[in-house]
């Protein structure tokens, strides 16, 4: 997961880029066999343990999901902890510190 955060005044604009195949369960491999569904279902963000963001996603989100969120009332030095979880239970966590 790649995170880019921009703080302007007290408004933080955060761009998330998740590396994930987002298999919808409708694609076939070369042998014509269906590739099982495996896609990101939840992306969340916390600041000091308090949840500030959540999106639930379905199979219709593009491969390598890109999501932009805007948070008001933020300050430099704050760290946002992001986490995604996919339909197989796999997950990744990454944090970004605002500056």
């Amino acid at each position, binding site marked *: 997961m790649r995170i880019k955060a921009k703080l302007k005044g007290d*408004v933080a604009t955060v761009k998330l880029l998740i590396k994930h195949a987002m298999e919808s369960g409708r*694609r076939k491999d070369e042998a014509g066999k269906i590739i099982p569904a495996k896609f990101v279902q939840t992306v969340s963000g916390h600041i000091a343990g308090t949840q500030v963001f*959540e*999106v*639930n996603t379905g199979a219709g*989100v593009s491969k390598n999901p*890109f999501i932009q969120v*805007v948070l008001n009332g933020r300050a430099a030095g704050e760290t946002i902890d992001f986490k995604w979880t996919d339909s197989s239970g796999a997950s990744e966590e990454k944090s970004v510190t605002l500056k």
Partner: protein
Amino acid sequence: MSLTRRGMLKRIIAGSAVALVPFSAFAQWAEAAFKADNYKAALTAIGSEGAVASDKIKLKAPEIAENGAVVPIQVSSTLENIESISLLVEKNPTPLTAQFKMFPGLKPDFKIRVRMGETSKVVAIVKADGKSYSASSEVKVTIGGCGG
């Protein structure tokens, strides 16, 4: 592994934390809604059949998407007391694509890239004050992004 009292306690605490996860994180993923295989069923599953069109929702989508595999969408709203914002692609095999939940300080302004199998309406549903509002935009797809 030795079973000290402290070790046991730690494991019990860790075990209960794991047991709680489904309630805090996974149970919220609305399986029935995300697996609904037609637009009407998806709309019913999120409880928004009666959504009223609102000009307080701004849905930005390209008129023509050359590549249906990556269609950039931006949705924002000036409605008050927003609970959630859902994005649906009417003609996709599973129309419900994303559901943003609101939190204090979170601006109702999101960007996300979606897949579109064919030319279709993209619909944003905003739930605010217990009511559902909608805005839609037609996107022409030249090359679909759902098959393989």
